[in-house]
């Protein structure tokens, strides 16, 4: 069980900066980077932390500054938070007149030993402890909902982009092949069969599409850093917005190369069907 819990800080704003007395006996807290920057806190500083109603404030020493785990659902909100040891938080938040055992926590995180079935464990906990709800962390479907939708949205945009690119690609290959009409005509006239010319075009198509794909991937890798840095700066988060993973790269190559080769072959085939003399303009 993790002993530290996340406490949304309600009282950090407006703390006197003068409360910086180096006292090693004080209980310690971790402060989020955003809160530390906003309040000018550094390691060793003493801060007062209190429940939202402002009562029972206690001094804590800042033991460290941490980068909050990137949370897409909190995009755009600066995470002003401190992490306290659970006993300290309970001492702060439990009313003095509360009966013993009235303390409560929101959640308990459990790390299982390697090889343990998380689903079976959660079922077991649910059966043994009625009133508790145990879920494997991989079952965070509800939290991921908006991002599944965004994934579908981006996929739709990608499909439209591929369609537009395909149309342009065919237009370009038709023009490029047409430019080589005379050469193809001469090759046909000196005896090369259509299949031989088509094979040459196919190889050229593979080469051009491969080089184009490699260039596109390189561009994506370079722009990945630029886009991530921009959005991380814009939203003050460590979240990754764009990630060129091996599977994404392979998908792109698997779409781009066959598309490029097909466009070249189709355009060439349309040309090669014509009479060789007409092609050579003789």
């Amino acid at each position, binding site marked *: 069980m993790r002993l530290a819990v996340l406490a949304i800080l309600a009282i950090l704003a407006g703390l006197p900066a003068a409360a910086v007395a180096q006292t090693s006996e004080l209980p310690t807290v971790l402060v989020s980077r955003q809160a530390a920057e906003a309040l000018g806190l550094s390691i060793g500083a003493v801060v007062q932390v209190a429940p939202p109603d402002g009562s029972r404030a206690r001094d804590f020493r800042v033991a460290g500054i941490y980068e909050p785990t990137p949370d897409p659902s909190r995009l*755009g909100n600066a995470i002003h938070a401190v992490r306290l040891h659970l006993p300290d938080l309970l001492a702060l938040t439990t009313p003095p007149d509360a009966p013993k055992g009235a303390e409560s926590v929101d959640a308990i995180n459990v790390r299982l030993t390697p090889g343990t079935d998380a689903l079976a464990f959660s079922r077991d906990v649910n059966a043994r402890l009625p009133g508790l709800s145990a879920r494997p962390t991989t079952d965070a479907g509800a939290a991921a909902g908006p991002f599944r939708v965004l994934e579908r949205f981006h996929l739709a945009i990608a499909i439209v982009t591929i369609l*537009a690119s395909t149309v342009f690609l065919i237009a370009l290959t038709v*023009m490029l092949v047409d430019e080589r009409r005379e050469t193809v005509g001469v090759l046909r006239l000196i005896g090369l069969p259509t299949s031989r010319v088509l094979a040459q075009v196919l190889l050229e198509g593979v080469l051009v599409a491969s080089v184009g794909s490699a260039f596109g991937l390189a561009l994506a890798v370079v722009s990945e850093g630029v886009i991530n840095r921009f959005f991380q700066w814009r939203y003050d988060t460590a979240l990754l917005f764009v990630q060129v993973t091996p599977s994404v790269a392979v998908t792109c190559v698997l779409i781009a190369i066959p598309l490029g080769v097909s466009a070249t072959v189709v355009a060439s085939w349309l040309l090669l069907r014509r009479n060789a003399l007409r092609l050579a303009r003789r």
Partner: protein
Amino acid sequence: MIALRFAWRSLVRQPARALLGVLGVAAVGALLFDMLMLSDGLVVSMRDMLERTGFDIRITASGDLRRAGDRMHDTDATLAALRRLPQLGTVLAIRFVEAETDGPAGPMAMTLEGVQGDARPWTVLAGRDPAGDGEVVVSRALADALRLEPGGALTVRARCAASNQVLPPARLRVVGIAEFPFELVGDPTAGAAMPTLDAACASRTDEADIILASALGEVDATAAAVRAAQPRLNVATNEQVLGRLQRNGFTYFRQISAVLSAVTVGFALLLITVLLTVSVNQRLGEIAALRALGFSRRRVVADVLCESILIVGLGGLVSLPLGAALARGLDGILKTMPGIPGQMNFFVLEPATLGLHAGLLALTALAAALYPMQVVARLPIAATLRAEVLS
């Protein structure tokens, strides 16, 4: 005009090539059109929804959006104090409670909305407003899911104090079907007077999530008066709510729309430039012959520009209906996002969007034609004709 006609003939002479160019611009233009609609769509849609409710001021405990923040206490006293302000018209307190009901495929999550005040935040579509205890109106989504009609019964188990609390079932009488402007996707709603909600919760808490108020005069001045009267509460006008959403909630779509718009325009620019350049390179001999026959440099340059304008112009026209259809599809995808009001639209067409779309495409046409125009303008007539004859 003559240059335009000449450019048209050049395009028609090679219909397949021209058609592919136009289709390519249409596809890219449709995407650009959609991204421009997406850029401000959420804000425009939200503004429309806020204005349709007829309330100008939103009062909450913490300034957070619905259900995210703390509840206001002493609602009766707060409402009474607000009603004493001469600047305010109608005042309405709302409390949202998570609940579940028995759906066709098992328990179904829903929201029970209790209201207290001078107006109702919903519009009755069939039946009537709840008048007595135990009466509710249900949203169309809830009515369709449970096949409810006015006169039917709805059994709910409310979670009033905590999300894991489930109270004994409360049987409510459906008296109408209503439109809830802020009903979330996948979260059907039923609305009732506050006493009915209290009865479902088996306790009277005198709490509200939000108080809506309409201003009789100038909205900002009225909001300031409310702030002065209720300094512990957070008071926001519709414009302030929109501003907050623009800064936080909707920025992702603005950014993604800006990035994709820039990429789309760049893509179109690159490809039209290549199309025109290759086309011009193939016709260098023909252009040199026209120059030799007496066509001026300006005239042949104008031909290339007109060709670009025709491709982009025709593609741009086709892109509008294509973009509208695509926007419907993309909107359908995005509307499945949980936590979004069902009536909100991501893609909203405004006159300014059309103007911006046309402007960007016109700039693209002009910029794409620059290099091929330069090629044509600098064409050495004699050398080109000689090379053409020798080839």
